């Protein structure tokens, strides 16, 4: 690959969102922004080889994309003036046309990215549309790539993106930072989308990557999510929960090489080979967590990161400070009462006060609608029953977990456990 082509590819990865954001802000039209950004990158590939890479590739790309947008708007206006009906349509296009002049206002690449992020994560859009749009707009992933990562046909993903963009237009969502009264909630909405993205990738890391469709693409989502949250910490430096989420992702993702055994079986936290954990990423996560906590405005992501930090700091599973983990789960449960958090708390409770205490807590959760069909409920129960010396009941719980499990890595783990119990 020539230096110019490499530079263009590099710029594509690092500048796509900014170029898109700049054109979206000045035209208010995400489709046009996408088309213009694509055009700018295609032009870059051609001209940088011939004329060399410009000093400021991002600015060059943004200017080129804006020029393209202006050309399109001019053309649309000319065409629409040909009929009386269409002429009426042209009126609203005149304002954005002026706005789109390449030299309008000071350039604000980070501001453009932040506005784009808030727009893609707007709660008036369907959640799956938000996730897809965020990936497409902020990372430059193609529709086909986003589709593969979410295991849906490309046409389905294309439709999802089209609907989200139409709804942006139809409901009057603009490319802006939300008004102060809504900013707190809206920032939380952004984090929900980014965490969901990470979770998709994170789950795939406990799966046998090559036996499961889309495994490689899904795993890559975790890296994308980490990059996007890191970007968000730069755009929103005063929000400790954003940094808390970054710490959480870094600490969880640092364990990726240990989460699936060579035979594709999920390795639990206790079973993982801790020498495979990535120390540099753990150190990075711990630093981010300390910075977040120092602000003195704790929130659910910071607490979850603190729990992950306790696991990462323990040299062996046996050395885990479970009393502290339990205390943090109590805090988390008070902040976000959720059955899944309560299930995790029951695990910590069993470590501190014995399996009977954990089993009692789990029995309280048996009726939770949110946990119906969730294989980890009977799986955890099986583990505690085995520890309590009730292997028959443990085997029954494992069979119940196997009935509902929908992840290959976990299925293999449950089968192995069941085999160990019944040959015992």
């Amino acid at each position, binding site marked *: 690959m020539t230096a110019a082509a490499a530079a263009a590819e590099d710029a594509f990865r690092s500048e796509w969102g900014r170029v898109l954001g700049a054109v979206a802000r000045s035209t208010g039209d995400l489709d046009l922004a996408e088309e213009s950004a694509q055009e700018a990158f295609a032009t870059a590939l051609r001209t940088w080889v011939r004329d060399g890479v410009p000093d400021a590739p991002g600015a060059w790309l943004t200017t080129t994309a804006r020029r393209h947008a202006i050309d399109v708007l001019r053309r649309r206006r000319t065409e629409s003036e040909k009929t009386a009906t269409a002429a*009426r*349509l042209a009126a609203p296009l005149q304002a954005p046309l002026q706005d789109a002049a390449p030299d309008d206002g000071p350039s604000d690449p980070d501001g453009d990215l932040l506005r784009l992020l808030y727009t893609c994560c*707007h*709660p*008036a859009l*369907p*959640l*799956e549309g938000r*996730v*897809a749009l965020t990936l497409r707009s902020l990372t430059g992933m193609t529709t086909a790539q986003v589709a593969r990562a*979410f*295991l*849906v046909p490309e046409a389905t*993903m294309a439709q*999802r993106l*089209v*609907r989200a963009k*139409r*709804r942006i*237009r*139809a*409901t*009057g*969502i*603009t490319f*802006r930072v*939300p*008004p102060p*009264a*809504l900013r707190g909630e809206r920032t939380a909405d952004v984090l929900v989308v980014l965490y*969901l993205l990470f979770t*998709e990738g994170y789950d795939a890391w406990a799966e046998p990557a090559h036996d499961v469709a889309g495994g490689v693409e899904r795993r890559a989502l975790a890296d994308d999510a980490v990059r996007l949250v890191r970007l968000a910490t730069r755009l929103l430096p005063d929000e400790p929960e954003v940094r808390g989420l970054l710490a959480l992702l870094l600490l969880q993702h640092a364990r990726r090489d240990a989460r699936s055994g060579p035979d594709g079986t999920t390795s639990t936290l206790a079973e993982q080979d801790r020498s495979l954990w990535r120390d540099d990423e753990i150190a990075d996560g711990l630093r981010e967590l300390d910075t977040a906590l120092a602000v003195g405005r704790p929130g659910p992501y910071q607490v979850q990161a603190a729990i992950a930090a306790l696991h990462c700091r323990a040299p062996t599973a046996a050395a885990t400070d479970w009393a502290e983990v339990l205390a943090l789960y109590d805090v988390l449960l008070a902040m976000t009462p959720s059955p899944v958090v309560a299930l995790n708390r029951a695990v910590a409770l069993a470590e501190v006060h014995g399996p009977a205490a954990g089993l009692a807590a789990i029995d309280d959760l048996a009726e939770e609608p949110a946990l119906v069909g969730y294989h980890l409920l009977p799986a955890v129960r099986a583990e505690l029953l085995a520890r309590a010396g009730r292997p028959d009941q443990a085997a029954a719980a494992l069979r119940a977990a196997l009935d509902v499990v929908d992840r290959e890595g976990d299925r293999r783990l449950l089968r192995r456990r069941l085999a160990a119990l019944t040959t015992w």
Partner: protein
Amino acid sequence: MRYLMLVLSTPDDAEVGSEGTDGVPRIEDWVDRHYGSGAAVLGDRLRPPEDAVGVRVRGGRVVVTDGPYSETKEAIGGFDVLDAPDLDTAIAIASEHPMAYAGAIELRPFWPLEVADAAGGDVTAGGEPAGAGKGGA
């Protein structure tokens, strides 16, 4: 952009008193503020659903009924027309309305006839159900 802001009440919601209690804004303050600024344009209270008159055309015939078509429990109790630069501004204004606390507000963007591309079949008001699940899960 113009929005129709629907003020909804349900039988289960507590009554919002005229006194601003428990952090609930007073309707007088809301009216002063947003009609004063010009963002709220037109509004009124509506008669209860029992007094609604439904009009439909079926098979070329106008069918008039003496009640609402809505099958949800919420009833539209009033409306305001907002003139706001964008959805976020409209949401912010709606969130300051007392009925956002004890009932519900529905914003319906105006749909000017001139906007040709809004005619797509997908953009039914209200859109798809929120949280239809994460993709491909």
